[in-house]
């Protein structure tokens, strides 16, 4: 079997998710044994303009240049993977959508703002057809492997549609709410093996919300623990502002 040609691209993001690949350690050699990386600006200078078997796309779409470019990538790529929270769900870039577009443009670019085009932040699946999604800020390395294998085999694969609490409980963590700390685990998509809570932090909701969160139930839990709703809504808006 000829090794599939793989490229990494980025839009509005910090490129930290791509660094997760470079950070893989030993497993990186196994991955490189399976794929032929032809463009990946975090680790190499070569470029590639031809057809692609797999395109990893990090970052969200925030202006018309980006929209044009992602459409071109989509045309060249047999498989497109939205990679990281910014790509998969809009991520932190989505916070822009809280504000009036003109106002925020002025605020960010100053008096010459009209030179800088901008649009409401969109996640990659909101712009082009996306074959696989790897969410998370940053992405959880074992999940990258699962998706790469699925892409190579041509099988379907999507992040789990249940809350982080499921994995958190299996990891035998003490519930953050029992410690008096607000945590977004109950409404956030699992798949990260409750990475943050295992390490003593709360869930920031970086993987996006589950498809059918119980907002009323979550509100009752907050009331029970005397946590003001706006406090949690603010936390939620950190990653979830592109949710339609």
């Amino acid at each position, binding site marked *: 079997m000829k090794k599939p040609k793989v490229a990494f691209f980025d839009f509005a993001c910090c490129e930290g998710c791509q660094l997760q690949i470079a950070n893989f350690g030993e497993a990186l050699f196994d991955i490189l044994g399976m794929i032929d990386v032809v463009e990946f600006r975090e680790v190499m200078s070569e470029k590639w303009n031809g057809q692609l078997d797999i395109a990893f796309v990090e970052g969200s779409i925030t202006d018309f240049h980006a929209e044009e470019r992602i459409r071109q990538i989509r045309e060249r790529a047999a498989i497109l993977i939205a990679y990281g929270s910014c790509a998969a769900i809009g991520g932190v870039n989505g916070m822009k959508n809280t504000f009036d577009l003109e106002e925020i443009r002025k605020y960010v670019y100053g008096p010459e703002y009209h030179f800088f085009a901008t649009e409401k932040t969109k996640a990659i699946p909101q712009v082009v057809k996306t074959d696989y999604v790897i969410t998370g800020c940053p992405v959880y390395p074992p999940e990258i492997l699962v998706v790469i294998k699925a892409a190579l085999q041509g099988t379907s694969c999507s992040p789990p549609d249940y809350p982080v609490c499921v994995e958190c409980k299996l990891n035998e963590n003490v519930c953050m709410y029992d410690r008096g700390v607000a945590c977004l685990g109950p409404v956030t998509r699992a798949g990260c093996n409750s990475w943050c809570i295992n390490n003593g932090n709360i869930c920031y909701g970086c993987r996006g919300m589950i498809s059918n969160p119980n907002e009323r*139930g979550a509100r009752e839990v907050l009331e029970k623990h005397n946590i003001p709703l706006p406090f949690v809504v603010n936390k939620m808006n950190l990653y979830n502002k592109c949710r339609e």
Partner: protein
Amino acid sequence: MEYNISRGLSVQAVVEYERMVLFGVHTCDLAGIQCLNMVFSRRPKDYNYLIRKNKIDIIGLECNDYCDEFASCNLVNANMPSGGYDLFFTDMGDYFIVHINTQVGDQIIDSTKLFERADRSHLRELVTLREHKRTLFRNEVSVEPREIPELFDKTFESEVWKRLDEKCLACGNCTNVCPTCYCFDVIDEVNLELKGGRKYRKWDSCQLEPFARVAGGENFRKERAARQRHRYYRKFRYPVPIYSRFFCTGCGRCSRTCMAGIRLKDTLNALVEEGITKVWKKWL
């Protein structure tokens, strides 16, 4: 199961087990293990479970009083020992009375040489303790166990389930801690070379959104209310004709762990309040 396709197809069944002793298992969990034994002994038998179980010895420990307000072990008759252990310890204050239930238990007693034969006065004290327990442990729910299956039949469309829909966060914690929940998913994990891999079981829960979702996107229990109801029916209704017992052991863990505050006793009491007048058995 492990498989490899590099030279033809080779498939290897894998059974994971280790010799171990479960120490201090309370009667609710002994009941839980008995439930699982019945489930996995049904055909097709689950050999992974049965082999593993045979390597595990169980030393039980009696509860002299309720652990907390969430327990409902009297309702399901799990507060008194009824087998399922090798040895069973009862704390008598100054000493323990140990009931030997199996040959393995006998061997432990023989080889440790730590135990003396109990005489009549000890056994009388045990009887007194059990009698005292009968005054402490009272049915925690306002319904007779024999009325429960019919009560569930009459309350399938109850408002109680709708209220659970509003509360439940579908985190699956109640099923994760339940001693009789055994549902699993089967995961296919292929190696990076795509030449081999393993197929293994992973915990799954009826409370999770994708559990009853099938090809084509149809979800048989899309509503949280339907999923919570299913959980209760799996404990109090469905197992009754098959195994002649409830699959709730009264351990109280689901209530204790639920961050949304769904309490088993409260749910049952609410069902009773709404539906007990429709239960014919009450008058028989």
